[in-house]
């Protein structure tokens, strides 16, 4: 227990020491629509890309809480992402809800879904849990196409929604406004996650991860905590899904194939599995590398005139292997160990 407390205080101190940097960074981001958007330096499409990075960061954060801090593996977080996205899309499309009101609903729906899934999953450990969650990820797109759900989900065709114009006559485009909304939600979610991890619950989660037997002996109700963590993790990822639906203005079963679950997991591992800044890096990785590895591969093979034909995704695979070998604790872990080494000199 003593070691856990130590590491917890360490995290808090580390975050507090860096906090003014974070605030400056966030203020810079918040000013982007005014500076970059007004001058036309940053297009609306670029804002969409930035928003998507933040959205994936929230999704990765959800998985981080579960896998990094509680030690449960999930290969199915794309399913919760889909539930959140469809909750938001259906409420906006069929019940004419304003977009902001759908976020708490998506959060609630995903918490319940995650908690219920977490209960039976308690009996499964390690790779069995991984397989069970993977099955969930494979099943969800098919369930969304199910004939009797079609009045709600619109089947394979998907649902088109439209985002609202910025309120109070703000001189912003829709994408710039949504960028600010997504940023605000992300700050709230990361703040909540940090507080959760620094609390009694957070220490219990880590105790269960590190020493399940000892945690039980200390009187921690580990099955309860594990199910709740599953719920909270799904909640974070579900909110990300809802934001994705709102900014992307479109959901369809094909948006949430099992590749998405893998992408979220890869993002979490690459960023740093038990680290909050790692979630941000993971989000950027999911959107930037994952989406453009294909195009990058083509560009490189076209400019260098390689004798062999590079398959799409080659760059992605190579980058992944190098990263995992050189930074086994993810990019966030790699950076902090690099900094420690530099300090020694």
């Amino acid at each position, binding site marked *: 227990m003593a070691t856990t407390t130590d590491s917890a205080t360490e995290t808090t101190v580390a975050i507090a020491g860096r906090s003014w940097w974070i605030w400056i960074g966030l203020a810079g981001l918040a000013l982007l629509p005014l500076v970059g958007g007004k001058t036309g330096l940053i297009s609306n*499409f670029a804002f969409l890309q930035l928003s998507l990075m933040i959205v994936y960061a929230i999704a990765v954060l959800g998985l981080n809480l579960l896998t990094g801090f509680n030690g449960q593996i999930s290969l199915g977080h794309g399913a919760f992402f889909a539930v959140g996205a469809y909750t938001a899309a259906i409420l906006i499309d069929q019940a004419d809800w304003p977009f902001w009101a759908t976020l708490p609903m998506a959060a609630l729906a995903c918490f319940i879904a995650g908690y219920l899934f977490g209960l039976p999953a308690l009996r499964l450990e390690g790779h069995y849990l991984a397989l069970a969650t993977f099955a969930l990820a494979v099943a969800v797109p098919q369930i969304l196409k199910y004939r009797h759900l079609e009045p709600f989900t619109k089947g*394979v*065709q*998907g649902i088109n929604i439209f985002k609202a114009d910025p309120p109070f006559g703000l001189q912003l485009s829709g994408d710039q406004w949504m960028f600010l909304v997504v940023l605000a939600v992300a700050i709230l979610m990361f703040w909540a996650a940090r507080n959760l991890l620094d609390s009694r619950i957070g220490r219990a989660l880590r105790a269960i991860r590190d020493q399940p037997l000892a945690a039980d002996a200390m009187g921690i109700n580990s099955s309860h905590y594990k199910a709740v963590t599953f719920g909270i993790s799904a909640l974070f990822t579900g909110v990300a899904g809802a934001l994705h639906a709102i900014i*992307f203005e479109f959901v369809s079963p*094909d*948006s949430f194939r099992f590749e998405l679950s893998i992408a979220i997991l890869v993002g979490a591992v690459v960023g740093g599995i038990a680290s909050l800044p790692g979630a941000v890096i993971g989000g950027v990785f999911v959107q930037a590398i994952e989406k453009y590895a*294909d195009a990058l591969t083509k560009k490189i093979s076209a400019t260098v005139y390689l004798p062999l034909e590079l398959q799409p995704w080659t760059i992605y695979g190579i980058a992944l292997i190098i990263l995992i070998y050189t930074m086994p604790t993810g990019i966030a872990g790699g950076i902090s160990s690099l900094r420690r080494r530099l300090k020694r000199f």
Partner: protein
Amino acid sequence: MMQTSRRLLLASTIGLALCVASPATAQKTYDEGASDAEIKIGNTNPYSGNASAYGQIGRTIEAYFKMVNDNGGINGRKITFITYDDGYTPPKAVEMVRKLVEDDKVLLVFQTLGTPSNSAIHKYMNQKKVPQLFVATGASKWGNPKEFPWTMGWQPDYATEGGIYAKHILASLPDAKIGVLMQNDDYGKDYFNGFKAGLGKDADKIVQVATYEVADPTVDSQMIQLKNSGANVFFNITTPKFAAQAIKKAAEIGWKPTHYLNNVSISVGSVMKPAGLEASQGVITAQYLKDATDTQWKTSPDMVEWNKFMDKYMPQGDKSSSFHVYGYAAGATMAQVLKQCGDNLTRENIMKQAASLKGFENPMLLPGIKINTSATDFYPIQAVQLSRFEGESWKIFGNVLSNEGASQ
């Protein structure tokens, strides 16, 4: 917003000044994506994934505009054709089309491919008021100018085509028991509904409907199911990869129904050859384009031109693939619309000209089929001719069956 209005002000001031200075000069008006030097056209196509055979269409259009540019462009302007991979998935198409409109700032989007992908961007294009022209899908919903004035189809719509097969079955096969294989999406349903409507009160002749998802690896089990239903007529509503699988599987399991294949999968190179020429004999379809494998067109001027184009701009292309003919023909329609626009390259004028094609003799269309559009008729091609696969090519038979003049 402010920037646009300033630009508008500037443009109109210059325009006004020009008018005063030299009334003889024709006024040039442009929307985003057009200028004195170039016209930017955007496109998405499946260059990867299960439907990647269609990617040949995008590549052909790219080559077609290269040829147009080499010949001096259109009214002195070069075409910049930007095409992205959407993998035949709607979310990717949405993202790429937004990139085209907002980042690349194209004047219009042309020949985006696939019913699901076009459905996903349908409302967006109309909200943005950017033309979504001559989409590469035959769903009947693209011809709805009242609600979606910025979207127009090109090929004969699926419902009409399905209806034509139904009529042919009723006329030639009185004791038909029909099995249907269809892709489970809007495209499949459109064909099926048109087919069913064509059968009318004889719709109970359909004894079995099997569906597949575009992500499925094969349609083997569906084919066995259809054979076991005892059907003697087979309506095959599939995209190329699955069409080839279905033809092959039918031969393997010894099922020999009268086989109707939807027009989207009649590429000899991409479907019939992979399926096996032996297995493909006698398959019936409806065509509106000349098939490059059909020797009777060998000397017709448009086919000669097309062969020259293929040799020079797509030397690696498979001439037996109908997608090269399709892309070339669609490119010609687009070029005609831009020609008609003259120096008025606003999005509004482009839609106006697209809806004013009168008896346009598009290269590569079958004799007797012309392109006609009007403010209420957003279906450019509305006639087909039945055709049967014999030897190594399609042989047309019967008369041109037209649905021209119908709007909505």
